[in-house]
């Protein structure tokens, strides 16, 4: 596959609704990013404890209920702000996707928050992409959002261009 033919294929699909595989890959990457963020928060807490109480250094051990909850909170916060800001989290940036409203606009913060909560606590909803004729997950149907192929860098308010680089 030459570079030109690859780009021609990608250019043709810009602005189309993304399929299951791309979105799952992006979400897995986001899961890893959220995990790294949680771990960073734990390390930061450990450093603070170390500075306050002295050696030895150790990561703080959270109670189980808080551990699960804290992970979810980190993921929700991360996804909420990235989707509301640019429409693309780290995972979606890497895979070349963008979350927008059905009208093609940037998500308001509260819709972004609801979508993130649904994502984190009801990930099975993603499977609906397979069945949906419009490649919509349960979260998309609830919050009325769309995930598009969008490689280009542009302000989130702009609709995606139908061209990919170069």
């Amino acid at each position, binding site marked *: 596959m030459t570079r030109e033919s*690859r780009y021609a294929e990608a250019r043709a699909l810009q602005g189309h609704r993304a*399929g299951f*595989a791309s979105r799952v890959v992006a979400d897995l990457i986001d899961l890893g990013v959220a995990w790294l963020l949680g771990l960073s928060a734990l390390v930061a807490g450990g450093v603070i404890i170390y500075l306050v109480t002295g050696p030895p250094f150790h990561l703080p051990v959270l109670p189980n209920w808080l551990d699960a909850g804290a992970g979810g909170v980190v993921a929700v916060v991360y996804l909420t702000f990235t989707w509301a800001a640019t429409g693309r989290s780290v995972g979606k940036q890497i895979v*070349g996707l963008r979350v927008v409203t*059905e009208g*093609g606009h940037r998500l308001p913060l509260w819709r972004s928050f609801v979508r993130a909560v649904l994502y984190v606590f009801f990930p099975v909803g993603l499977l609906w992409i397979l*069945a949906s004729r419009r490649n919509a997950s349960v979260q998309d149907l609830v919050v009325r959002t769309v995930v598009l192929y969008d490689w280009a860098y542009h302000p989130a308010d702009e609709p995606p261009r139908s061209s990919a680089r170069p």
Partner: protein
Amino acid sequence: MVQDNGRALVPVATELTGTPPVPDGQVDLPRLVAAAAFGLAVEAQRRSWDAAADVMGRFGRPLRALAGPAVAVARGSVAVARHHLDLDGWAARGRAEQRRAQEAAAGAVRALIAGVAAAVIEAIDLDEVMARVDLDRIVQRVDIDAIAGRIDLDAIVQRIDIDAIAGRIDLDAIVQRVDVDAIAARIDLDSVVARVDIEAILARVDLPGITEQVIDEVDLGEIIRESSSTMASETVDALRVQGMRVDGLVSRIVDGILRREGQRQTGPLPDDPQP
């Protein structure tokens, strides 16, 4: 005065040399007689001058006293004569004749000198003269240092107008005359190159310094960044395209399982969507 001049012009007896001898030893009588007569005449003139001088010494004063009236009479008669006999005209003619005679004499003298000079030059063998000249001795006598010391080179150089000289020089014409190809053909490049001590030149060159400069100029970091970012971007693009393909494949499989007809509605969003 007249006496002194006359005495100076007349040779005295002691200055006279004898009759030149005839080569064969015989005496040339006519010439001897003529010379003796000339000698006698000269001696007689000298003695008469002496006698006149004595007479003038003794009777000069009374004579001058007596001569006063005589001179006056003579002057009066001369004035009369000048008037009636046209003495001035005769004198002018006489002076003209005298001048002509002087010019003729001068011309004759000049011709004589020219003839003598030509004869002398003919007689002189210049080669022989030059052969006698000892140039080495002459040169030895010349004190070149002294001559050089006298020369004021600064003054000479100050007088020279170099700009004017340079202005006169037609460099284009000179350069056009130069046959560069011929000069280049004469140059033996191999011998020139053979003389060059490349190792010495290399020893002078600060290779490490130059290398550092080159590395400083070349932004290796930027090149590496660019190439790596290009590689990364290519990799990401490839991943994205693969994701798109897998998406299409998965959709088709699912649609096949669900026995759906037609394509999925995944097209781009309408430009002006209904709220």
